[in-house]
């Protein structure tokens, strides 16, 4: 089910323009103004094209972090998905593998994406700085995943940071055979799985964003009077409790009767919630 969202829910991260092409088509992504490597839809999906390797990825993230979009909290997505081609000793070209471990040839610390996505193949993604031609380990060899994980952690929710790789080369078909057309073909063949992953992440991100959003009546209050951080937290939670307890109309009525200050309002809301407590035999 399409979610029409003002805010960004999922950011897809790819290294190559050739990987970005099919994704732009699948999700109807349009270039974001004043950038040349960021694309976005009105369905809560954004695409960041970083260039090959850890350095380029870090640089792209840093550049993106300086844009006005990244400074607005609703423009930083809870979910992040790194999709890209990778080499593998055992998997056939075109297969998709979801990462359950991301390691790096030059860093000892592996990361473990939460098993959220369903797939036929799961495994380790090993990030290297040069294309791997001999596939010594039973892992998907890529050049960005490890840096992606570290960077995405600064912006997204740990459980919604995911990585999946499409196998582009193996001992039977080496890296020299990879062309833009081959990448396009691999991505198109995997379009159903890619859409499924993106949809799931988008739904989970939407649910989280919805849970964390401010109650409408609280926003009205915050618009009307000045609240310090503490007052804001308290009044927000009190409003949330009215909503959750299905007493929104009561809250509306209380607000309509007027209040002098944030302190006064906190007191009124507290008293009202307290006075409703009774255990009676029905």
């Amino acid at each position, binding site marked *: 089910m399409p979610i029409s969202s003002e805010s960004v829910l999922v950011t897809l991260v790819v290294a190559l323009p050739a990987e970005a092409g099919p994704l732009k088509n699948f999700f109807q992504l349009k270039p974001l103004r004043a950038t040349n490597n960021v694309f976005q839809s009105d369905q809560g999906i954004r695409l960041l094209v970083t260039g090959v390797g850890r350095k380029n990825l870090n640089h792209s993230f840093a550049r993106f972090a300086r844009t006005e979009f990244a400074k607005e909290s609703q423009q930083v997505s809870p979910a992040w998905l790194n999709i890209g081609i990778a080499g593998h000793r055992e998997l056939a070209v075109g297969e998709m593998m979801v990462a359950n471990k991301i390691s790096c040839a030059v860093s000892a610390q592996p990361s473990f994406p939460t098993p959220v996505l369903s797939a036929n193949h799961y495994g380790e993604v090993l990030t290297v700085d040069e294309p791997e031609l001999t596939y010594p380990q039973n892992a998907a060899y890529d050049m960005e995943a490890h840096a992606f994980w570290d960077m995405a952690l600064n912006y997204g929710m740990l459980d919604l940071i995911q990585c999946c790789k499409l196998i582009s080369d193996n001992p039977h078909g080496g890296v020299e055979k990879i062309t833009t057309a081959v990448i396009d073909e691999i991505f198109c063949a995997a379009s159903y799985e890619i859409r499924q992953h993106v949809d799931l992440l988008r739904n989970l991100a939407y649910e989280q964003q919805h849970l964390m959003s401010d109650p409408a009546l609280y926003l009205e209050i915050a618009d009307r009077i000045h609240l310090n951080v503490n007052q804001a937290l308290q009044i927000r939670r009190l409003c949330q409790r009215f909503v959750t307890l299905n007493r929104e109309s009561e809250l509306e009525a209380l607000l309509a009767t007027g209040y002098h200050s944030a302190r006064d309002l906190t007191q009124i809301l507290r008293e009202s*919630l307290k006075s409703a407590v009774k255990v009676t035999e029905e």
Partner: protein
Amino acid sequence: MKFSAVYIERAIAEHELTQRIIARVSETPVITIDRYGEVFNRAGQNFRIQKRAPALILAKKHGKTVLPAPEGYGFEQGRGFYFSHMLNCLYDCRYCFLQGMYRSAHYVLFVNYEDFMAGIDAEALSHDEGTVFYSGYDCDSLAMEPISAFCESFIPFFANRPASILEVRTKSTQVRQLLDFQPIDNCVVAMSFTPEAASKRWEHKVPNLSKRLQAMKKLQRSGWKIAVRFEPVIGEAGVEAEYERLFSQTFSVLSADELHSVSLGEFRLPAQFHKNLVKLYPDEDLLARETVQHDGMLSLAAGGEALLEALEDRLFSYVDRSRYYRCA
């Protein structure tokens, strides 16, 4: 029983129980890790998201395996201890403190049962007055029996230690393994119950009341000692009538005279855990209700002493007071 993945600590990869479990979940992706904390204890995890598809983590418990039980945790029968061979639970009760205590919803199973057993022996030997060991403090002890082989391992162990009592806390109907054993006198199976409406509303994935009562009946009939824990009591309009119905349902199936013990306990949890629960479930009515705080513990304002006394009065028309204790 399905897991989204199985993480295995390198150190126990060859342990017999690990090998047995891997064979049972052969379709599940296996990931080798150094210490369970690198997955389980990470900051920034979301219990609610993970609860959709938890993974199983097989680990080794280091350090102390057996700890003193909190005051008033069980029926007075000797010095109380608890041990947690597992962290987290198959079920998903909305009031469960585990959601507020752990950062992750994955299940951790400590496979080095031999170290728990050594810990139990050490405590039993150093206390002459008799000892009770509670299992199921941080998990449900029976729910994962086909994987954990908990009863399979610990019932024969306690059978050889008649001076020590094992109390197994559960909401599960997985009693087949127990029924396959000869009942032992020093094991108590304690099942928690809330009224049917509360269970339907908050005890997600827990077997229904009548199935649990039937499981307890089977145990009682075959000679196992069983106990009933009416907790957590959640005070709200109509709750006394709900409990009257629950007591009547329970004692029409189970023989009250043969029960090991019966208890009542309020919905209480540490204030910080409540705060964590609210963050996860701001949309949950139970967690939006008015609370009162005492010594760092939160309980519902719509509960308290008067309600518990009223429920106790009703309960005593079914059960003798000598079998009763109020859970702290």
